[in-house]
């Protein structure tokens, strides 16, 4: 609430997001409470809709604003105020991949990821790098962490005495420093060694498996033979499949996909069908 009352224009863009986010995901929490007990899926569609609203559509809107402001080179004033320049950089995002499960909440599933290893063998053969042990690091880590954690009581005492004093502004080591500007983005952002290139989503279509199992039993197979014949995982889809083909799996590809999913309902329908592992689930 302090942030709201202060004039911190840079915060304004996102200020309401968390409040809205909380409301929209309320149904997801309820669903999650039920799910803890392993019950039937509930409100998962509402949860996915909230992901679309709060992540994908926000990104789409930000990207649209960026492209518009790029066309109008001058930062136009609106209602007397200077319109804030939107940040369209991809680097601000990190991708959280949440997987389908083996438990048949929907159809059982897992994923195989493919990643770039080209050039690695020649690098190994040339002996151009050394493999370093970790013993020293872990010994030092223990000492460092003990030192970092030692002063809790002292810290609290001092921070109570020196409220708002600069002693309160000491470094919180659970917060990182900014990434140094001279470092390049990693394999999640630009194509290089270890960049993810593609994934294959496997699933077990339980309805078909049950049909085939029963049929094999009817045809005279033993239970074990019938199970071996009937049970299989198959490819549900690959990341480069239509209708929203991803050329690679860099952060920019996910952001592009998020924008498409925000815009096009037919793509969204396909995406949620896949999210629910082709079970046809709706709330």
């Amino acid at each position, binding site marked *: 609430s302090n942030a709201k009352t202060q004039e911190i224009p840079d915060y304004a863009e996102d200020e309401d997001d968390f409040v809205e986010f909380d409301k929209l995901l309320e149904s997801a929490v309820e669903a999650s409470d039920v799910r803890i007990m392993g019950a039937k899926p509930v409100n998962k569609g509402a949860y996915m809709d909230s992901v679309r609203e709060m992540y994908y559509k926000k990104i789409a809107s930000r990207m649209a604003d960026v492209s518009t402001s790029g066309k109008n080179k001058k930062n136009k004033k609106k209602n007397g105020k200077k319109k804030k320049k939107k940040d369209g950089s991809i680097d601000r995002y990190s991708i959280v991949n*949440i997987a389908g499960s083996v438990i048949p909440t929907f159809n059982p599933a897992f994923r195989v990821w493919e990643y770039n290893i080209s050039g690695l063998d020649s690098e190994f*053969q040339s002996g151009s790098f050394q493999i370093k042990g970790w013993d020293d690091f872990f010994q030092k880590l223990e000492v460092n962490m003990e030192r970092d954690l030692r002063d809790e009581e002292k810290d609290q005492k001092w921070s109570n005495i020196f409220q708002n004093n600069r002693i309160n502004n000491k470094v919180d080591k659970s917060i990182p420093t900014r990434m140094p500007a001279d470092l390049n*983005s990693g394999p999640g952002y630009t194509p290089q060694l270890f960049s993810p290139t593609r994934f294959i989503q496997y699933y077990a279509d339980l309805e078909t498996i049950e049909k085939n199992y029963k049929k094999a039993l009817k045809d005279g197979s033993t239970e074990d033979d019938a199970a071996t014949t009937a049970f299989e995982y198959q490819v549900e889809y690959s990341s480069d499949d239509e209708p929203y083909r991803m050329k690679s799996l860099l952060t920019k590809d996910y952001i592009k996909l998020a924008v498409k999913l925000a815009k096009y309902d037919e793509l969204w329908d396909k995406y949620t069908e*896949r999210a629910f592992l082709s079970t046809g689930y709706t709330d």
Partner: protein
Amino acid sequence: QLPGGKSKTLHGRFLHITDIHPDPHYKTGSSAADVCHSGKPDKKKDTATRFGVAMNGCDSSMDLMEYTLKWVEDNLKDKIDFVVWTGDNIRHDNDRKIPRTESQIFELNEEMAHKFEKMFRRPNSADPRDFAVDVVPSLGNNDVFPHNLFSLGPTLQTREIYNMWSNFVPQEQQRAFARGTSFFVEVIPGKLAVLSIQTLYLYKANPLVDSCNSKKQPGYQLLLWLGYVLEELRSRNMKVWLTGHVPPILKNYEESCYHKYTLWTNEYRDVIIGGLYGHMNMDHFVPVDGKKSWKAIDAT
């Protein structure tokens, strides 16, 4: 060729598997209304079939678990470089007649660990840590007792977990693991690591998690560990996948933990390739925003 005369063939592929939830009490032919443990089904959709029915609310039958692992062994084992296995290897506590016990949770987790070891270890090696395909497990909220509640170690639970996973956790990380149950594996030595994060220390539903702002909080200590590890990986020019059970979205993580974790993932984007999580049983992705998290942290 690796040190010690070992060698490893890389395929440029790895497996992510999660939330297996095998249930030893699953009974084929029982009623889904009775969580597939007992009862007579009143209609076809209510019947617990051998491999299960999607969306009927039951855990995995033991057959579903066994045949799934067998399928992986037959079809993927020789084509992948490592396995990311993000936990929840135990049935849900959803049957009042058969409440879960701590020992059952340990036993089934141990059994699952043995299965993965057997499948991916080099069969003829005397070294129990010699894996043809490295396996990097992480702990789910159902793998701990009481449900969701998990404290910093060393405790009985962290010791038991280390015993179960002793062949997965590198030896030099034993002490750090006993405290924070997070660790990493160099799946391509000197080049690529997979970090197993103890996400329960950031998880809102863990009653021991208040925030990530006090040094006594498990989440604070986890983030401290994460920072040192990421910095070392950066200095070694290694790359890393972050993995864990509960995904870092605002509704799962305590707010300060969420923002701080997001900042680490974003400010080490030169090192981190991405994040792989389970828990929600739905296939989707969420782009988290480092800039927003800086603003939230600055504002508080």
